[in-house]
């Protein structure tokens, strides 16, 4: 289904941040997704941030069962789900309690007044009803008896109370759609397909959606009716893509581009599971998604598949990456393509599985025995996940070495518009396939890249053995000679170093030199970019550089750094990239800004920090 939208002019709000929150059973993720998809289809740029609890279904109304979905929509390119909420939707007291702190006075609050029963109030720790005790006076409170209205709308439907209750989120969505001038079409159609085989449920949801919409239209209470006009995104054919889906698709694209089959060995773990959940859908695209018995088997099967000529990929999150270290070392040693995707989550140990964090960088770089360099790259937004998954595969195949792609729960679960790429739009991937068995040994290398020539089973005359023991520089036979080991160790390091010739230069957003360079990596891109842009718009000199490539660093990194007086490295960890910088660029001076709360940076805290540095003028 493709729609054509022209940008319709409007002089309303230029961007809008909404957070839907409720019980994990309230369907807030779906509601939020619908709202953002609809907005994207209407031409807005969007950025989303789901934030869900560790429990599958926590008891109804409990604090730790609160599930949230935040979306920013805009008429300009945006890069983060925003942090100043315009609207907070709270389906019950627990959701209100958990989220009200993020709503500034004067902003709008939409609640289901039916959910503020004594029982639920108590469960969430309220002594009196905030809808009545005046404590919400600072907000534009819109209290709607959504539960009752939903039940009423469905009076004539032959369904039990529980089933009816479940469509309440559509009532909420109907209200919100009216508030922000969104079309119902997309969601109506979505329901059409989703419940194709359950016509009763389909009709009920569609009816409730319209009922909410009409209710809002008719009700005087709703005073503000904003409309966000389409964004100035590049023209073209779009779709909404989630980060983990984008990773999956990037891998599929790379395999097809390289004319290989994609072998994906994985073991479920939050938040990486979604990549596996996505890839299992595509056997028809020659995707072999193999759910292994554990992480070690997952990465090992991927290595085996690479040895036999597939594009071997594995995915995991922090604790799983810890288990894969030894096998990654093997892949590095035998110099085979292998892509490892690590969707980071809050650590250490089991940590905070559903929260986001950037604390696996050092593990990615060093979590193996011996001198074991591999390529490390990072994705910085949901749609960028596509590019970097493709890129990880490209580098791995072209350089015959493992590539570790860092993503995180924030961008993996987030979604945004993606300008559709077809195979012909993507760069070529050059495989180093051995040609001539006479002049070949397993470690025959390209003079420039130091990449060895690949020979896979089935290629006559290329029979050979590889393994984890040190091997002779030329023949590849097991070899324990001291100087050979030193030579091989250096070759392995140099091979990865030279990847810098095959990756783009580091880009600086904003001024190319000046008082302050903000540096980040991974999922903080949107927040850092936006904060810097806004500061520039306020007339200050500030620049932002984002490291998508971490090992090796882009060639021009030192040059970029040297053009700025202060370099501030912002990370959602205790300072991991900055550690790398300090050891790799020992003559330079780095300061750091860290947040370790399982949450993304907010625009406000970043701007505060940046401004305070800019205004101090000190050489830090």
């Amino acid at each position, binding site marked *: 289904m493709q729609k054509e939208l022209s940008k319709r002019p409007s002089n309303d709000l230029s961007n809008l941040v909404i957070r839907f929150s409720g019980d994990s059973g309230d369907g807030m993720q779906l509601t939020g997704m619908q709202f953002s998809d609809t907005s994207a289809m209407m031409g807005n740029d969007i950025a989303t941030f789901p934030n869900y609890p560790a429990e599958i279904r926590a008891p109804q109304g409990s604090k730790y069962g609160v599930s949230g979905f935040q979306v920013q929509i805009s008429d300009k390119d945006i890069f983060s789900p925003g942090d100043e909420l315009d609207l907070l939707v709270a389906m019950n007291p627990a959701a209100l309690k958990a989220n009200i702190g993020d709503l500034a006075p004067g902003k709008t609050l939409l609640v289901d007044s039916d959910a503020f029963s004594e029982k639920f109030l108590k469960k969430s720790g309220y002594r009196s009803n905030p809808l009545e005790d005046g404590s919400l006076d600072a907000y534009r409170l819109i209290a709607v008896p959504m539960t009752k209205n939903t039940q009423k709308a469905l009076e004539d439907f032959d369904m039990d109370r529980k089933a009816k209750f479940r469509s309440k989120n559509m009532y909420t969505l109907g209200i919100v759609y009216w508030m922000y001038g969104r079309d119902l079409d997309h969601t109506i159609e979505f329901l059409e397909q989703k419940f194709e085989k359950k016509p009763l449920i389909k009709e009920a949801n569609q009816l409730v959606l319209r009922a909410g919409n009409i209710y809002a239209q008719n009700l005087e209470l709703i005073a503000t009716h904003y409309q966000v006009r389409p964004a100035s995104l590049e023209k073209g054919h779009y779709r909404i893509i989630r980060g983990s889906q984008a990773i999956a698709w990037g891998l599929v694209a790379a395999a097809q581009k390289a004319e290989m089959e994609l072998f994906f060995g994985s073991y479920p773990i939050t938040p990486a599971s979604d990549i596996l959940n996505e890839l299992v859908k595509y056997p028809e695209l020659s995707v072999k998604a193999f759910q292994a018995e554990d992480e070690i088997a997952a990465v090992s099967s991927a290595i085996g598949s690479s040895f036999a000529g597939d594009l071997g990929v594995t995915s995991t999150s922090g604790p799983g990456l810890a288990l894969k270290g030894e096998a990654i070392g093997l892949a590095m040693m035998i110099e085979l393509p292998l892509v490892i995707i690590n969707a980071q989550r809050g650590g250490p140990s089991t940590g905070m599985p559903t929260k986001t964090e950037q604390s696996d960088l050092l593990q990615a770089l060093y979590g193996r025995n011996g001198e074991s360099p591999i390529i490390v790259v990072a994705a910085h937004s949901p749609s960028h996940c596509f590019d970097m998954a493709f890129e990880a595969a490209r580098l791995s195949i072209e350089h015959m070495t493992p590539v570790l792609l860092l993503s995180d729960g924030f961008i993996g679960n987030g979604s945004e518009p993606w300008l559709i790429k077809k195979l012909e739009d993507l760069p070529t991937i050059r495989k180093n396939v051995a040609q001539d068995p006479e002049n070949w040994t397993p470690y025959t290398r390209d003079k420039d890249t130091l990449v060895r020539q690949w020979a896979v089973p089935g290629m006559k005359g290329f*029979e050979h053995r590889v393994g984890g023991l040190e091997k002779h520089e030329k023949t590849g036979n097991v070899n324990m000679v001291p100087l050979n080991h030193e030579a091989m160790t250096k070759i392995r390091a140099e091979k990865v170093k030279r990847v810098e010739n095959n990756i783009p230069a580091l880009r600086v957003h904003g001024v190319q030199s000046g008082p302050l360079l903000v540096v980040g990596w991974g999922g903080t891109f949107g927040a850092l970019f936006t904060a810097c842009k806004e500061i520039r718009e306020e007339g200050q000199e500030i620049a932002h550089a984002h490291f998508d490539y971490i090992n090796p660093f882009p060639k021009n990194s030192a040059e970029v750094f040297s053009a700025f007086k202060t370099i501030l490295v912002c990370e959602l960890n205790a300072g991991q990239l900055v550690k790398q910088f300090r050891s790799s660029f020992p003559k330079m001076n780095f300061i750091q800004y860290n947040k370790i709360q399982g949450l993304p940076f907010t625009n406000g805290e970043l701007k505060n920090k940046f401004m305070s540095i800019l205004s101090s003028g000190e050489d830090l």
Partner: protein
Amino acid sequence: MSETIQYTHKDMASDQEVRWCPGCDDYVILRAVQRALPKIGKKREDIVFISGIGCSSRFPYYVETFGMHSIHGRAAPIATGVKLANPDLSVWMISGDGDSLAIGGNHFIHVLRRNIDLNIILFNNEIYGLTKGQFSPTSKLDQITKTSPYGNTQPPFNAGALAMGANARFFARVSGNSLKEMQTLFVQAEKFRGSALIEVMQNCPIFNEGAFDVYNDRAQRPNTQLFLEHAKPMIFGAEKNKGIVLKGLKLEVVTIGENGVVEEDILIHDAHEPDPTLHTMLVKLVNPIITGIIRSVDELTFGDRFIGQMNARKSAANGKTFNDLVVSGETYYLK
């Protein structure tokens, strides 16, 4: 196979010097493999050996095929990846009792459960050879080893019984000094579609000398070992007069001609019986030890199911590519 190649065992030897201790049964197994390979009708370039780590796991270096000497315990999932990447390959997994039953135990049971089409040779010497003599999960209770100076306190696995518990479809056992029998078994394992597990009672003269003497010794063997053949009676003994009968739920050894026992009383071996009860009982016998192919039951392999599902979806999808994927579902144009 379009082209027929005539290999000899010499074609199967790589140029690497073999580095096991003098007298190690590993040499015999290597020779058996090198002699079996020319008989399986596969080209050298279509054969892959995957091993873990251990003395036994040096094996791939010595065979002139593709091979990988990987990491400890992980031969099974690596071999799984190889086979799924290219189902046409003949894939051999080489492993020791430590490699497959200690650190690799999980992969061992899962590879059998899935019935990946591999030939698995388990070099069971009831000891960790490479690390110089610690007890393994198959070492005997009370055995004195480097890490059990006062006697091993860990009751051993019976490798075959564990395999049965994991739903092994093919299980064979053989003496480590029986070149001929091994050769035959290896060829039969390759013919079998699915995980074919062959346990070799492998003598390690350095750290566990004589562990299998009672079974492997040429003189004692006729009375201590029963080499099964499908559809043949379970008869053994230097005088071919001993046999196995079923008494209730127990196996018993009887002597033909004594107490009125006649040859017809002896159990007939049926390797293809899907119910594993009798096979499991045989696997656990110790007097005599049962060798040969104890179980060989055809079932879909994991490749049949997994690659089969892929191929079915592919033909139904009619050449769908990535370009179709990206425009499927909801998309929109911005102008």
